């Protein structure tokens, strides 16, 4: 781990949909330079938790802080330092990959030169160069997933949140994403990823949190959990 500043901090996080409790009293911390795996079966509350971290959902109670910013009271500051890759890459189908990255860069107010440089760099690293000028509706699922990751990395976030990032990817792309996440962590980014597959968590993560029926049942390294 590069350093030990807390970049994601959840305290007594609760999300209710009517009578149904999707997330119940979840508290945990993720440090800078750490790859944290959020493991749990389908419907355990992983996506709901992630959506609260990136500001897509408002918690019923509790707080989430990203890089020290409260996601509810300082949402713009929190969003400016975080990147998010959803489980389904719903991207603007009629934009080209390059246009998408340019659009995201502008949303984060990157200056023109930095934006151009970052776009080319990410397209090259994620092997999207050849498809960069084609509209996204012509991309395969894996390419869309990589475009989604590129969009999340455009502003070089301090916190990267990924929901099931390797689902539907071929082994080469999965390996590429794993390497990128590790590099990000080595540069001090906190990576928070969800998965329901134990092997993925084991291979990619420094620490793991296990969630079941909305409750965090265990947190620790793989060895500690064994």
């Amino acid at each position, binding site marked *: 781990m590069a350093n030990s500043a807390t970049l994601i901090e959840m305290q007594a996080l609760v999300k209710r949909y009517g009578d149904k409790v999707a997330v119940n009293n979840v508290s945990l911390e993720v440090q800078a330079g750490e790859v944290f795996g959020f493991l749990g079966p389908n419907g355990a509350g992983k996506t709901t938790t992630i959506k609260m971290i*990136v*500001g*897509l*959902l*408002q918690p019923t109670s509790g707080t989430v802080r990203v890089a020290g910013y409260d996601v509810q009271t300082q*949402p*713009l*500051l929190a*969003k*400016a330092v*975080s990147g*998010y890759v*959803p489980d*389904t890459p*719903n*991207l*603007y189908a*009629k*934009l080209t990959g*390059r*246009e998408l990255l*340019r*659009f*995201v860069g*502008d*949303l*984060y*107010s*990157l200056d*023109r*030169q930095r*934006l*151009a*440089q970052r*776009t*080319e760099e990410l397209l090259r690293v994620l092997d999207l*160069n*050849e*498809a*960069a*000028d*084609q*509209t996204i*509706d*012509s*991309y*395969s699922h894996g390419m869309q997933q990589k475009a989604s990751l590129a*969009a999340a990395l455009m502003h070089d976030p301090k916190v990267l949140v990924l929901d099931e990032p390797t689902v539907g990817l071929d082994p080469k792309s999965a390996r590429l994403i794993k390497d990128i996440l590790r590099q990000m962590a080595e540069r001090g980014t906190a990576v928070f990823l969800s998965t329901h597959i134990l092997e993925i968590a084991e291979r990619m993560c420094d620490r793991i949190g296990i969630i079941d029926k909305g409750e965090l049942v265990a947190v620790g390294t793989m060895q500690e959990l064994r």
Partner: protein
Amino acid sequence: MNGLSIQPSGRLFPSIWKLIRLRLLLNWNAFKHARTRRKVVTIVLVILALAFTGFIFFLSWLLLGFLRSAKLTQYVGFDVAPFLQSVPVLVFALIFLGILFSSFGVLLQALYLSGDMDFLLTSPVPIRAVFVTKLLQAVLPSFGLAALFGLPVLYGLGLSGHYNFLYYPLVLLTMVALTLAAAGISALLVMLVARLVPPRRVAEVLGFLTATLSILCSQSGNLYNTLGRNVTISGSQVNGAFALLMRFNTPWNPLDWAGAGLVALGEGRWLPGFGLVALTLGLAALAFSFALATSERWYYSGWAGMQVVTYKKKSTRPARVKTATAQPESGAVSLAGAQMRRLLPAPILAVIQKDFLLMRRDIRNMSQPVTPLIFGIFYTVMFLRPGNAMFPDSPDMPGIFSTISHLIASYGNIGMSLFVGWMLLSRLAGMAFSAEGRNYWMLKASPLRPAQLLTAKFLVAYLPTLALGVVFMVTVSILQKASMAMFLYGLLATSLCQAGMTGILLAFGVGGANFNWTDPRRMNAGAIGCLGQALAGLFLPIAFGFFVGPLLLVGIFNWPQVYGYLAGALAGVAVSATGALLPPWLVQKRVERLNED
């Protein structure tokens, strides 16, 4: 070895039944789990459709009975019996051609874009069964419509002519056979086109053409009224129309055989009757079987082609490197870009650029802005047509009516421009947020202020409407030879009223935003969006009234016109600015929480 020992059924009809049962189950579940209001509406619609069928039946019975009357024969000067015999010919030809063309889009969707074909093609079900089910699924709505209008007419004809009982079941059988044949041929056309052009692109172009043609057809009556003169129908014209219809009834046209055969059967001419009906049914069966057999081969290659087209690398030329440093913008563009960047923050510009790009690239979106354009052209022609004055000038006319008449003549073009703007804004502003669809998470997860997003969406809706309004105003003002003062005042009123409407529609669009759609034509802003449209429609005459009202008053009291312009401008600006700014400001908090349900 493990697993169940599965014996796939290669039998056609049980497989078709399985697939139809699945479709019925899906429809039943959709009805069962629908809201009560939707259920009630469905039931009422079914009852209304049945009542409508009964009404058409009695109407055609009476009408066709009247057509056989001696009075009419005396009036038109010839026997209408041959015309009546050509009615089934006309009905069957219309059904065949209607289903052939209307099934194209539905089959394109069902065969290539529905998403369940992968599952069905990998299931142990004969592919022929899949096609038959898809064809039935696609033609059922068209067949329902054809039966709704066609069957009552044909049965009314049979009753009024005392046709043989065999006529009635054979009418239904022939209708089914022709429907299946038309659908089969349509499916072949779909597959042929899908081999040449990506199906998604075909669907986009088709959606645009259908919407544009529908609007043109719906306005054809207005066009006729606009261009036509007073029309009186003479006996010879009726005679000519009958003769034209009967010209369709020729023995050389296969489309005529079904109708001619059924009439012959009804009238007891057995040999030609059975011969022509059997020939029609045989040809229909042949066309359907041929379509099925050919579909099996064509579909696989078209489907495989679609997968390749979807994922293939389209551009063979080297990718252009679009970097700010490598590709500097040209002087004027660069200056304009820099000015825009100074005026608006980068996130707002990004959303505006993105929205305009998407609007232009998905041709299905274009059908909605085209609608107001068509309306605008039609109503402008109607408005500018000579002899359209509400109160024609007369020396006896009271002063107030004369003033109103001149105001309407002078500022009616503004009203027209605003009406066209209202239609365009209902789509662009009312659905500005819904248009984001499932991609909304990208905006929500980014550090974009609600005010910035509202500003961007406001400008995306307002700027094209303003441009259209200006073009409209300039054109009409030139045609009307309006004074410069009147033109400029009109422009001010139009641009500000449109801004007010944009604000109202945008705010209600936020309230009713619906992000869960895949086809842009299904995008809507719900009941709240409809309320917004109604309120914007109400706001329109009020804001316009504030602009024009003072002019009316100075005209009545013979005060200097400049006071009218000043007072109207002040009042109009205040009302329009309130409409443009207040509603979006009120919904800022709601924008923060959008798409969290």
